[in-house]
């Protein structure tokens, strides 16, 4: 797994460097979350749309769509499509759009996201549909902490709670930074756990870079039959010293020299 995560961080940096644009900070912060979900937690279909186990697959919604580079890399390394395609990221005609899109028929992408605050409501709809169809699959949603400032997220939290959607599990990538700076300075979210609890959710806080903690939290959430939210405490830009905890690396591509240094650090 350590190697898998390292490869994913490599991909993220190389893809964003090649595209000369993208979101390294929030992609690097959610690597372990995605890695645990796709390697240990989710039931993943053997073939996208074509295998009989496709219908019962667990669904994943990347509500923080700007972390697309991380998701694309994880999907490619799990065999959804070729890792060679990763380098087309954000380029004209690519299936790997800047933010995930179902329009390009990229294997592994369930929904189109990008405009923040919409993924959780979409996941509520998916969870309702699964229940109507007696499908035992789970829906996992990854939200950004800055994204929690969107009012529509709280509409959706209320809906999920009202409808008792125990087949829906959310994880918040809490890296404490947004484009304009610290979330605590731009618009504070705290006490996030208490707010979620007040909305009817059972909350578990974990180290978002500790795979054992993440795995345990996801397993507990599945078994609990309660509405579960996992707050994953992370570091934006995790793995590259000069990107860590720096708001400036939210949406900026590394230049040649920065890429070289970053890859060197990951290799050390």
């Amino acid at each position: 797994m350590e190697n898998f995560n390292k490869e994913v961080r490599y991909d993220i940096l190389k893809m964003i460097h090649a595209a000369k644009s993208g979101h390294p900070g929030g992609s690097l912060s959610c690597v372990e979350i995605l890695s645990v979900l796709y390697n240990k937690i989710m039931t993943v279909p053997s073939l996208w749309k074509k295998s009989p186990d496709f219908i019962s697959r667990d669904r994943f919604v990347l509500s923080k769509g700007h972390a697309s580079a991380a998701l694309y890399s994880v999907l490619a390394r799990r065999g959804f499509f070729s890792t060679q395609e990763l380098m087309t990221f954000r380029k004209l005609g690519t299936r790997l759009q800047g933010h995930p899109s179902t329009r390009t028929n990229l294997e592994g992408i369930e929904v189109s996201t990008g405009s923040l605050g919409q993924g959780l409501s979409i996941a509520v709809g998916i969870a309702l549909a699964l229940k109507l169809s007696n499908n035992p699959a789970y829906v996992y949603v990854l939200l950004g902490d800055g994204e929690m400032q969107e009012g529509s997220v709280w509409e959706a939290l209320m809906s999920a709670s009202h409808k008792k959607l125990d087949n829906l599990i959310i994880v918040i990538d809490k890296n404490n930074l947004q484009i304009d700076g610290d979330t605590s300075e731009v618009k504070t979210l705290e006490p996030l756990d208490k707010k979620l609890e007040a909305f009817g959710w059972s909350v578990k806080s974990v180290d978002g870079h500790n795979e054992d903690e993440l795995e345990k939290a996801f397993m507990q959430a599945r078994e609990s039959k309660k509405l579960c939210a996992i707050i994953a405490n992370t570091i934006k830009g995790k793995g590259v010293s000069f990107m860590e905890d720096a708001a400036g690396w939210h949406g900026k591509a590394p230049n040649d020299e920065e890429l070289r240094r970053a890859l060197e650090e990951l290799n050390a």
Partner: protein
Amino acid sequence: MLKKDLEIKSPRNAYGETLVELGAKNTDIVVLDADLSCSTQTCKFQKAYPERFFNSGIAEQDMMCTAAGLATEGKIPFVSTFAMFATARCLDQIRNSICYPKLNVKIVATHGGITVGEDGASHQALEDISYMRSIPNMTVIVPADYNEVKQVIKYVSEIQGPVYVRLARTNLKTIFDENKYVFNPNKAVKVREGNDVTIITNGETLGEVLDCAQLLQNDGISAEVLHTPVIKPFTAAGDVIESVKKTGVAVTVENHSVIGGLGSAVCETLSENLPTRVLRIGTPDCFGQSGEQRELMDFYGLTGEKLYQTISKYLGKK
């Protein structure tokens, strides 16, 4: 095609009743509302199939994306609230989460236009068609009466992709005969044949335009009336061009702003194919106000009588 005897019926009831009929045949049909189910008449579906009805509460943004999620899994969601809140309030959700992925979501909005009445400008959607028409992948339909609404709802349940259907609050005179009229999404309906002027309309103003055409006839002016329920894609374009070629005069009438709706669609069509002066009648670039339905129709010049005055004057000056 036209109904002979006088009958006044609610297009909203047509919607609610048709949903119940469709729901019996197709268990993939689900319905969402935002705390207005009695006004939109989706309460009929709720009563028949409570497990397939979802009230989002007063949370339109959440409702639109929940519908997107249901459609992602193959359900056919019908989403309803007032036109004001079904469009402007959740425009980003409709654009990014429904139209961009081309999901099979049917937005059926009621209380479109000035005839919301006493509630006033905050509730009178005069720009909804303009918003919806500008989003790629969206189909926009504005049916005219009870019988047409029934056919339109059935039609949209059978096609793939996002649709916006705009209904009026008003109980309307039934124009089309339920046994003879067949809704055709690919054509304009020539409701009245004439040679002197082409009047293009849809929705609840069709009845007013027919009254106006009768008044013009008394003055010896023969008006051709085209009803164009499908405003996007503007499938009536060919019929509009053909008619205006014959009459040489184009007038549009709509219960909507003259910006971005039917008037604009007709101007776009004619300017590219048959440059013609067009008189656009609708609400000017303004907000509405409180009043009774008929008072407001009169104030904004949309009754048969007011249309007759405006169009007569226009034809006299031309």
